[in-house]
């Protein structure tokens, strides 16, 4: 059965088309202000990538903060349920799942059947999410894509106390004025964010194996900081930002429950 999963995130719309557990195509576009248009565009991109027409898709499920915007969805699941379904398929050994997206961080503990046991999310604060690194990259005048690699070249831990994106930015400016090297500030940014995420993960209980998904999983500086803070390796699937979309596509097909 060919099914589609659409994840309408706060920054990007991601689409996965699958058949019998095999990904046929993917699409991702900026959500922007016109979410409906972004959903259509992302779906078209995924269909083109899969090389199939829309009428070949038998079921379409939605997830993400804007899932209600997917008007022709057959059903929807929350981000927590979608994450758990996706990782249960990709990495069934995972018992703890960390999802760090643009505006939200989540920690989910699942049992050996992939069922959600407990979860935690960041509240009205973006300090534990991708928006934080974006703001800090701007403050450092470094392209976001470079921030992670720059961070990895640092061998010096600099304390950054701010727990808030606004105060974090002013702290970065202070560190710049103190002539702290950019690479060390970059590491401090990732360390601070990792501390916040691991604290949230420990609220639900960190049980190995740990999987990391979401767009921020592609930032090697954050991954390094997170693994140091957790004192363990984390599993990162290919295309970590598409795991939620894959999860609902698999749920639509009945491949996972």
């Amino acid at each position, binding site marked *: 059965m060919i099914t589609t999963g659409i994840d309408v995130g706060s920054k990007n719309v991601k689409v996965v088309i699958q058949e019998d557990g095999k990904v046929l195509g993917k699409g991702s576009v900026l959500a922007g202000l016109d979410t409906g248009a972004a959903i259509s565009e992302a779906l078209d991109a995924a269909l083109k990538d899969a090389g199939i027409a829309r009428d070949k898709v038998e079921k379409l499920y939605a997830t993400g903060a804007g899932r209600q915007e997917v008007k022709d969805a057959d059903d929807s699941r*929350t981000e927590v349920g979608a994450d758990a379904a996706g990782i249960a398929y990709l990495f069934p050994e995972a018992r703890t799942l960390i999802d760090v997206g643009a505006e939200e961080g989540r920690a989910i503990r699942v049992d050996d059947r992939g069922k959600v*046991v*407990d979860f935690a*999310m960041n509240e*009205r604060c973006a300090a534990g999410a991708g928006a934080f690194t974006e703001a800090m990259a701007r403050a450092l005048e470094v392209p976001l894509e470079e921030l992670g690699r720059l961070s990895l070249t640092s061998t010096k831990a600099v304390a950054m106390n701010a727990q808030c994106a606004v105060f974090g930015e002013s702290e970065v400016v202070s560190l710049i004025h103190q002539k702290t090297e950019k690479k060390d500030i970059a590491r401090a940014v990732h360390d601070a964010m990792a501390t916040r995420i691991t604290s949230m993960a420990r609220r639900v209980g960190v049980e190995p194996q740990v999987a990391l998904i979401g767009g921020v999983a592609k930032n090697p500086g954050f991954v390094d900081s997170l693994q140091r803070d957790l004192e363990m390796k984390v599993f990162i699937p290919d295309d970590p930002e598409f795991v939620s979309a894959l999860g609902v596509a698999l749920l639509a097909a009945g491949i996972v429950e």
Partner: protein
Amino acid sequence: MAKYKTAPLKSWERAKEIRADYYRNYEAAHEKGGLRWAGGAWTFDAVPAGLGDDVYPITSEPYGATIAFQKDFSDRCLEAAERAGYARDLCAYMRNYWGSIILNEYGWVDPGEERKPFPKPDFIWQDHICCSHAKWYQVVSDLEGGIPEYCVDVSVGPYEKTTEHGIDYVVGQLSDGIDWLEKVTGRKYDDEKLIKAVYNTCRAESTWAEICMLNQAVPAPLEEKTMYSLYVLGTLQKSSQAVADYYDELKAEVQDRVANGIAAVENEHARVMTDTQPPWGFLRVFRYMAEKYGCVSVGSLYTFALIGNWIWKDGKFVPRPTPQSLGVEIKDRDQALRVLVEWELSKPEWQHFYHPKYKSDMMIQIAKDWKLNGVMLHYNRGCEGLSLGIAENRLAILDAGFPVMVFEGNMGDEREFDEGRTMARIDSFMESLGVPKLA
């Protein structure tokens, strides 16, 4: 087709009437030659009752919540308090209350009428249950140009460790307080009215607990949003005859609902509870759970046990029998004060100021006996006292085998509550509980 039959509460209008009369009577007290007094919902309100039947209270927490429910007015009150220099992280009820005084606008508005000036109390009768409560009224007194204030120290708990000496200490303060009340009001104190008010207090609080017990039934005859409008009568004036009588009437009606299988939520599929104060401006959260998932919140520790009086008996959490039902006959002032103090200090909601384990134990027992699927905890930035130890409560409830959802908010400051994100969290929680959306 609905799973259960449902019907509105027949006594609902009477509850609304009692609340409206309460705020109107306070406001109009001077027109009838009466007195106004202010104090917390926890205060020993049976004591000022001895000054006469024309002495009307306004209790601070329900007043703060009443303002919070009126979001536009609440925003103005909070901003007024902040402009006056009071910090945003103080008790949200208190800031709403202070703002109402600073703006000189009364929180109660009858339909079709203009908002009236805040009616200044003649005296303050308070007790010091948390770090805010005494200071709260010190500021009220200052803002109003000096109002006589009497504050009772009740730090003799927890109840299971309260000694006779501790009871004596509080009784002594109340006894001195009666002298003080006579002095500041110029009225002669009537011990018979005190005794009657103490009996009413015990009857109202025991009966409310019995009503909450009835919610063990499946389907639940009451849901939390409605219970907030019912329990609040006790927080307004637990010592009044009207409230005690109303709870008797309500109990009979709820018994009838249980006997006839009348549900609060017609498609009850899941049951949860919350812990303490809700975000008052967003009670539709409960309707959302009911309408989207058939999930009924059967109450909270706050609705059950701020007014309800309970005891542990044979490992169960059950309504505390009134002294009068056990044959106690109150004969004089000292005995009345002693009965009142011993009764009030045993109330469950007082206990978790002392240690999180009390709250955890009570919530776990409720989760078991009220047959809950999960528990929702409000990380309430608006109340330091009742949020104390809440992360410990979460761990204990999880350890007992009940899934827990936490959400951050503020009981009285809507600026600290993210409705959309809370609804999204509820969706995730319901999904993780395996509760499907209603068709």
